[in-house]
């Protein structure tokens, strides 16, 4: 089925995710689209960034060539310092995550199920994968937002009744932001609910790209970025 309208870009997905962050929250951004979110935090919202590399609070990415190997994020990118940082070791970095001290994390995904199961670390076709900190974030962050393209490169739906790829965590996802839709995962196995659509898309066209069935919010709106 052809798309009724263009899909949103990665920056726009990041922009929409960034609207979820509340003033003062501790946020951990995964590799990929989530990393872009920090560029789009709404005015007046001050966040505290947490990184698995052993860091709380940091400045933006360092300018090219200005990198300090002793100041990196979890993706190995060089950061710039700001006043009020704290450094700590990996045991402490993950104590923070597992202990529920991180308010929200945004993660990429290979698949999300209608129960909020997340698969984002292992491609069976490769036979080996990097779990990194994804499983810890999946169980530990108070809120898990998935930021991803709605379909795989070959068009395969990534929102599914049940994940076929090995799981990262069960029932952990709270919100899915894609290039055509924003979908809530209702608590207690309540399934999925479409709350926002990309311009030119409606519930039916989104459902046609989605293997899992979702309900549609009475307040369904076009995706809100500001």
């Amino acid at each position, binding site marked *: 089925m052809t798309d009724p309208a263009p899909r949103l870009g990665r920056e726009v997905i990041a922009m929409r995710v960034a609207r979820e962050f509340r003033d003062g929250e501790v946020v951990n951004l995964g590799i990929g689209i989530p990393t872009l979110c920090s560029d789009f935090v709404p005015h007046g919202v001050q966040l505290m960034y947490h990184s698995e590399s052993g860091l709380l609070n940091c400045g933006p990415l360092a300018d090219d060539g200005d990198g300090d190997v002793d*100041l990196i994020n979890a993706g190995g990118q060089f950061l710039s310092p700001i006043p009020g940082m704290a450094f700590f070791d990996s045991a402490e970095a993950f104590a923070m995550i597992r202990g529920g001290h991180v308010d929200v994390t945004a993660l990429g995904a290979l698949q999300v199920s209608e129960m909020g199961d997340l698969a984002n670390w*292992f491609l069976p076709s490769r036979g*080996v*994968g990097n779990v990194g900190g994804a499983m*810890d974030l999946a169980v530990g962050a108070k809120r898990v937002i998935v930021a991803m393209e709605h379909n795989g490169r070959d068009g395969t739906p990534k929102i599914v009744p049940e994940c076929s790829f090995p799981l990262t965590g*069960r029932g952990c996802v709270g919100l899915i932001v894609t290039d055509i839709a924003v979908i809530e995962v209702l608590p207690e196995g309540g399934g999925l609910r479409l709350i926002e659509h990309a311009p030119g898309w409606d519930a039916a066209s989104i459902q046609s790209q989605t293997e899992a069935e979702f309900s549609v919010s009475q307040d369904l709106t076009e995706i809100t970025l500001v």
Partner: protein
Amino acid sequence: MPIDKTVNNFADAVSDISDGSVLMIGGFGGAGGMPHLLMLALRDQGARNLTIIGNTAGIAAPTGFGWPEGVEPIDHAILIENGQIAKVIASFPVSGSVSRPNAFEIGFRAGEIELEVVPQGTLAERMRAAGAGIAAFYTPTAAGTMLAEGKESRVFDGRVYVLERALHADFALIRAKTADTLGNLAYAGTSRTFNPPMAAAAMVTIAEVDEIVEPGGIDPERVDTPSIYVQRIVARPPMAEDGVALP
């Protein structure tokens, strides 16, 4: 005798690592916090059939992860390429890109190297448990996933937890910024990562440092790894003399 844990050169520092040893190798994956010269010395020393435990299995060469541009990365890959590694325990063992495999992935696909994947937080916590005399602990991480298969699961307060065991090592090769002669260590920035829990988890911890100072040269409030966890310290030579421009 005044305590002084200084070892004069890298070859001596790793000389008693025997075939079949279990080693932890510090750092997160990039240049920072990684014991480059200890790894080079271990490659030259030649011990084989080693198990290496760390966050990655050497991902810097294909990806440049955490390395300055234009500097040739040195990491676990030099030991793997030298045929010294039989098993890897890591959270992030391979390159982020299927099309650019690291030395580990090539060896793994060839069936030459065994792999145990452990979630990053569980890896750090298993090391901490080993150092802290905790035999095992219940963590929510990986519950209901394939990384919990074969492990005991148990419900506490309505939530599923997985039983994970302490992870010990014969040696830890770690990296710090400053040591005093007693073995107290201070790190720089995000280079701390796995180095402190590894120092506690290994029987013999060998720290590669930028400088060695007298006791009192590190603020006692600022000691990140107390000397009780450190058996040997060895200083990196000044870069200019050595000719190796390593971060």
